[in-house]
């Protein structure tokens, strides 16, 4: 894969999550688009392929697993990282079975998310 900037779509209905994570990810060299609406994010995914998608599991009107399904439908290459404040064993397994790259429980430190994003990026560059 080329050394172009990797593109990330970040979806969380809490404004603060995007506000905190976006600068950190941009500083690390990623291009980031942030959505607080799952519906709008799915529409965007239909028009553009992202390298990495970071999605909350519980978003307002759309389930995060629906976002995951939409990502898988458009691009099996995209790495999807699920984040949630309601993590359970069953949910983690379901997300992985449906193609999630990683599953992270909230609260987490931004540096921990960056490590996972970097891992996804490294894997994308190897493919």
């Amino acid at each position: 894969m080329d050394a172009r900037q990797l593109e990330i779509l970040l979806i969380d209905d809490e404004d603060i999550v995007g506000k905190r994570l976006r600068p950190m990810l941009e500083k690390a060299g990623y291009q980031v688009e942030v959505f607080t609406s799952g519906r709008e994010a799915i529409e965007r995914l239909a028009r553009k392929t992202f390298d990495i998608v970071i999605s909350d599991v519980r978003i307002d009107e759309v389930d995060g697993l629906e976002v995951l399904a939409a990502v898988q439908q458009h691009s099996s290459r995209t790495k999807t990282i699920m984040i949630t404040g309601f993590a359970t064993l069953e949910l983690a397994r379901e997300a992985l079975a449906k193609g999630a790259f990683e599953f992270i429980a909230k609260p987490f430190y931004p540096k921990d998310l960056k490590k996972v994003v970097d891992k996804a990026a490294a894997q994308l560059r190897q493919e």
Partner: protein
Amino acid sequence: MAMICLSSLAGCPGEEVAREAARLTGSEYVGPELLTAAATGAGLPVEKLHQALTTAPSFFGITLATRRRCLAHLQAVLTGRLLQGPTVFLVPYGHHLVRGISHLLKVRLYAPGEVRAQSWAQARSCSAAEAVRRVREQDRVRLLLARLLFSADDDDNDLFDLVVNSSHLDVEAAAQVVAETATQPRYRETSYSRQCLEDLALANRVKAALVGEDDEVEVTSSGGLVRLRTRVTGRRSRRRRQRLQQLAEQVDGVMGVELEQVDDLISRITRPLR
């Protein structure tokens, strides 16, 4: 890659399947030798710990407090071991000892009673009648202890992700099924499952440190913060609670301790009877 917990009924080839599954998945096999480490932690001879996990409750037998002490140390040793890397383990009640970890595949190996008795008789060169008696007795004790120590029905298949009938498969084929299931994406380690395992390991280390003082203390942990729930009551309860808190704070990895006291009247009345 998932970790694998194998639970094998008496007369099933649990150790052979576990060793082969470990070889196929490139994991380390952890077996009953873990009991020695747990016994050392509990300050008991390994035979006593073995008895605590394999003999039925009786009036003059091993006390519930001793059994809990043994379990607490076994849990601490086991979860500490799981943090070190890919593992296939076969230890008594392993599927009850490690809960809530999404990258742990729990497997039950079973076979009809008569098939297990036949294997038992062959392996130990005993009569068919003796083998049937021993297998039935082991099943009875297993169910009793699971109910006593974990409030669980050990024959409930919902405790497992995979149930394998070993009378239909040889050791290699059974291990192959287990190893292939372990490679399914749903059992992959994630940041979340790793954190759950680290939290559980810390809670178990704390529980092992406290169980000598209070065998009923409940311990949970999250990111280094430990929460204790104790039923310690009575005249010296304040001093004992302080002691629990101090002991917990001394455990490596503990960043803070929160203690909750539950004033359980029934427990207070029945405790001296146990």
